[in-house]
């Protein structure tokens, strides 16, 4: 009985520390969308994303934003078409709100609910898995946003009358540090 009490007293501080308020700022980021067409497989990458996170009262709220025009697919013409198709001049930012339990900020897997604002539309995605790895003072979070054209009412661009696939997954690779 005494041993159990001792063990409980020993372990009790861990969740208390894990639940402490914290703020996070993104250091490095790479967001890549993948576009599929029977004739093309294109990836466009942006390293211009910025992010901030707040963990408070058992919940973490992270905000990530990236300018639409910062994505580079290796071809200017294609990038301009992408901006046009996604109404990127009218709605120049992709804004992602991620929300997950504060306890997961220290675990290797994060299960987040996302609210994504893109192309003037808002879409919600529940239980999106992210992987977390700690590297010194930095925390690296990787995962994939399961975006689709239809979620944001984007008319799918076509080539040779064949439209691109509806799915445009966005790979997220961001490093964060606690403030």
């Amino acid at each position: 009985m005494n041993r159990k009490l001792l063990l409980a007293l020993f372990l009790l501080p861990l969740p208390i520390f894990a639940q402490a308020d914290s703020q996070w700022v993104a250091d490095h980021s790479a967001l890549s969308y993948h576009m599929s067409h029977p004739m093309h497989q294109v990836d466009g990458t942006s390293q211009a994303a910025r992010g901030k996170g707040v963990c408070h009262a058992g919940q973490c709220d992270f905000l990530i934003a990236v300018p639409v025009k910062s994505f580079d697919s290796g071809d200017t013409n294609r990038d301009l078409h992408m901006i046009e198709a996604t109404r990127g001049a009218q709605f120049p930012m992709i804004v992602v709100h991620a929300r997950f339990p504060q306890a997961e900020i220290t675990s290797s897997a994060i299960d987040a609910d996302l609210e994504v604002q893109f192309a003037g539309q808002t879409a919600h995605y529940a239980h999106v898995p992210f992987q977390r790895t700690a590297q010194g003072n930095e925390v690296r979070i990787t995962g994939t946003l399961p975006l689709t054209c239809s979620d944001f009412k984007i008319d799918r661009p076509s080539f040779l009358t064949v439209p691109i696939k509806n799915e445009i997954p966005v790979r997220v690779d961001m490093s964060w540090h606690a403030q």
Partner: protein
Amino acid sequence: MDLKAASAAFRAGVFLLFVLIPNLASAQATATLSGTITDAAGKPVPGAKIYAHTASMNQPGGQSAATQTDSAGSYSLPGLALGSYTVSVGADGFTAKETNVSLTAAGSQTLDLMLTASAAQQLPNAPSPAPAAPAPATSAPAAPSLGDLGFSQQQTQANPKLQAMLEKRTEMLKIHQRLGLITAIPMAATLITGPMAAAKGKNGETIKEPTNANLDFHAALGGATATLYFATAYFAIRAPKVPGVQKHGAIRWHEALAFVHGPGMILTPILGAMAYNQENNGEKVHGLAAAHGPVAVTTAIAYGAAIVAVSWPIHLKFWEK
């Protein structure tokens, strides 16, 4: 020069052009709602939030879009599916206004609204339009907002004029793309019938065998090719240029190759007409006219390479849906 044949070639080209272009330019079934928000004095209201949604916005197929007015009080909501919308407008210092609008035809529709001064109003039930991100419903006192991330106003500011320019550019380049692919068909046929064109006799008499692929047919195909080619070029040249964009990637090859096939498409018909005259005069094609074939082949190769360049990288996976 056989004026009849040249005229037939030209008519064939023009016919193809006018039959094809209306189909290429067919509009999508979306509309753009735009207009100006003014106050009671008729002055524009910048920064007003406009939110349009269908009755079933939370159901599959429901539509919603949001934006805000620019410094001239103008707004634009492109890409709205046709249907009935409720449009809400709000701005600091004005009473929020709501009205219904029906988008029944593709294209642009104007909705100008006047706001009356009041205490600061919040737009009812409307998310903030990008770039201003709505704060999530959380009790956290310092939940991050877009303003915390340090983006410049230039990065986050909506630019409806640029959007309109990009849409016009895309429309024109879509037509350019389709016409370009169609042009490749008569171009290939012209190349194939070129060697057969010698079936016309040296003294001008028509040799009836082996096929109809004689000089006149070849010239008609060439005329159609040239007409379609220059129509294709028109849509690329006249497409709006986006300022401040440094081009890179395959598009540069696509454009560079135009400096080969462009002059080639001018030279080829001229040399072809010279060769045509020489053949009709019973002469063997000679001098500059003898370059008609090689110039045509070079032009076609450059044209094909330009299509490949703009399609790069190519991954042929037609079996994938």
